[in-house]
């Protein structure tokens, strides 16, 4: 065993629980987050990427309107940036995302920081995890990934290039965190909790709609936003139930319990989260 590893003491035990809060009232739908994500994570770029259901993207910018048949001036539109919601299941102390337990070869797992990882060199491409994900957050490489033209020159060396026939997904840019930790270690700081980081989508958003941070830290901005009265989670109606009912339902089954929160003051956006 490495001598560094023997020094895992109480204070450098993982304390972080990464989460995100996205203010839909601030989002203009510019798509910068999605482009930055594709660039950062070496996502394949095809000449024609219009085949949306087969597209490989971690961050989908969903366009939602209040009513499909509505006419001007009654049309309202919002954009929902959607990535892996880093689900926890009913018990955050023993996370059980819908997608992890199903993988037959342990190619996806949940880390002690709550981030659901994906190892595509292990993945056999059975897509069982994709079937289990209620947020359509996982993408499959239906074609051999390509990086046309000069895109090849801009590949990120911190992220391995994906291969055909494997599942990929957002990991909250955990490679950036690793990079930051490596930097800290180089400066002699070995406490794993010493560094914070920001995923690319959050740092690229021009309006500051995406906030990232540690949900375990009550003083962090993300923690405060998650408790805001404008906050909700994607299609997670159990949040609105009275405590007793919540308990009863959670006995019946696990709920995804995502760590990505959305904020909006528009009632119709919140109503959209419920099936009629």
């Amino acid at each position, binding site marked *: 065993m490495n001598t560094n590893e023997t020094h895992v003491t109480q204070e450098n035990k993982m304390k972080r629980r990464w989460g995100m809060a996205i203010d839909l009232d601030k989002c203009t739908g510019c798509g910068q987050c999605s482009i930055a994500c594709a660039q950062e994570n070496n996502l394949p770029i095809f000449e024609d990427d219009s*085949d949306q*259901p*087969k*597209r490989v993207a971690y961050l989908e910018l*969903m366009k*939602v*309107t209040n009513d499909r048949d509505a006419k001007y001036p009654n049309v309202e539109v919002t954009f929902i940036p959607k990535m892996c919601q880093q*689900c926890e299941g009913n018990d955050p102390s023993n996370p059980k995302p*819908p997608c992890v*337990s*199903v*993988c*037959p*070869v*342990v190619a996806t797992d949940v880390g002690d920081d709550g981030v659901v990882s994906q190892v595509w060199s*292990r*993945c*056999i*491409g*059975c*897509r*069982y995890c*994709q*079937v*289990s*994900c*209620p*947020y*359509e957050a*996982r*993408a*499959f*490489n*239906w*074609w*051999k990934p390509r990086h046309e033209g000069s895109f090849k020159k801009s590949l990120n060396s911190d992220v391995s290039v994906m*291969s*055909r*026939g*494997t*599942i990929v997904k957002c990991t909250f840019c955990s490679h950036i965190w690793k990079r930051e930790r490596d930097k800290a270690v180089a400066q002699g700081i070995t406490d794993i909790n010493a560094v914070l980081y920001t995923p690319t989508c959050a740092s690229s958003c021009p309006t500051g709609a995406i906030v990232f941070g540690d949900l375990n830290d009550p003083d962090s901005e993300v923690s405060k936003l998650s408790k805001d009265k404008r906050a909700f989670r*994607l*299609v997670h*109606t*159990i949040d609105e139930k009275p405590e007793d009912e919540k308990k009863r*339902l959670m006995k*019946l*089954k*696990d*709920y*995804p319990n995502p760590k990505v929160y959305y904020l909006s003051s528009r009632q119709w956006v919140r109503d*959209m*989260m*419920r*099936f*009629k």
Partner: protein
Amino acid sequence: MNTLVKSVIDFIVETYNSYSKSMQIFFIFLAVNIFLFMVFAIQILFWGLGYTDMNNIFAMGVWIIGDLGLVSLGGGAFFTGFFLYMLRVDKLEPIINSTVLIGFMCYLFTFVFLVFDIGQPLRAWFGYAYPNWGTHLMPQSMLTEVVFCLTFYFCVLCVELIPVVLRHKIIDAIPAFHYIGHYLHRLMWIMAAAGTFLSFFHQGSLGGGMWDVLYGKPGWFRAHHQFFFMAIVAATAGGTSFMTLCPYIAGKVMKKEVAPMETFQTLAKISGAMFIFYTTFRIYDVYTMAAKYVPSFDRNYLDIWGGYYGIWMLVFEFAACFTAIAMLNIKKFRDQEKFMVIGISSGVAAIIMSKLYVVLHGFSIPNFPWKSFAAYNPTIQEWFITTGGLCCMIAIYMIMAKWFRLFPHLDKHEHHAE
């Protein structure tokens, strides 16, 4: 070498010419399908699953339906073996070889379809090398359970098939093979017991458990052991119907009595009884889905049916189940060949529909309120790999029926004729 090739070709042509016109057309149909299967197999294996209509929403398609159907219907092999070797229902003896062969092929092609279905076929062995085991002996992933149980049961079927092959006139004449075949045959009850044990697990996990653990998905989630056991009962009911139907059709095609009517009726009766269990179980399943599980997603049971895969699927399934129950359990009907055939065909149709329901209905349900029901339309590659696989199975069955001792009952008549 040339003479060998020539004699093989001559043999094929001669055999082909010995058949009627309609059979010759059928052979051409089989050959075309198998040829296209090979062409598209190369395309899919080398250039990937982009050529299918599956996508990030409809992540599985016709091949997984094929897998579920084949395993469930092929599951009739373990149940028939269980009745013959463990419960000593000797009337089933004349069709046991056919049953074992069908089971073997169903499982073989399940693996074939799985290899096409996974994105990285060369990593298929990861399933054995890095299995997702949970605590104790229980696998964490239902797919891990499927992989192991399918493999073991396939091995059992291989052993069960050996005596059928060894009983070939030429091979049986060699004393060593004769005795191996003989003693293996006597050990069959062990195989039947092992097969039954293994079958229980993978029938349950592939047909039910794999889907009911998906707690984020309203079309599938329900109590784990509910769907798990229902899939086992489905396999015993539909599988036995299928094991009756195949030799029956073979007999009609060969225009011979491949097994006594009593044998067919015995297995049909078992199937009918199992359909009563299955249908009762299924009614309970629909009830709990509607009353308990779908509402836990804040959704209404009827609302999750829509698009192309509407509630008609459920109506069809129940209609087929009730037809099978009536035709196979009422002696008056079962004793009439016509009604018995309607019964077993309905049984097979009910199980196929239940598998279509799992896959098509399950995937079609929208995950977000602003999205509509998804649809899936298999591409030519998917169709021909599926039909080509089924045609391979038919071809193997025909070859075995013609040249091997698939139907021992035929021997009696042939000896009489000689």
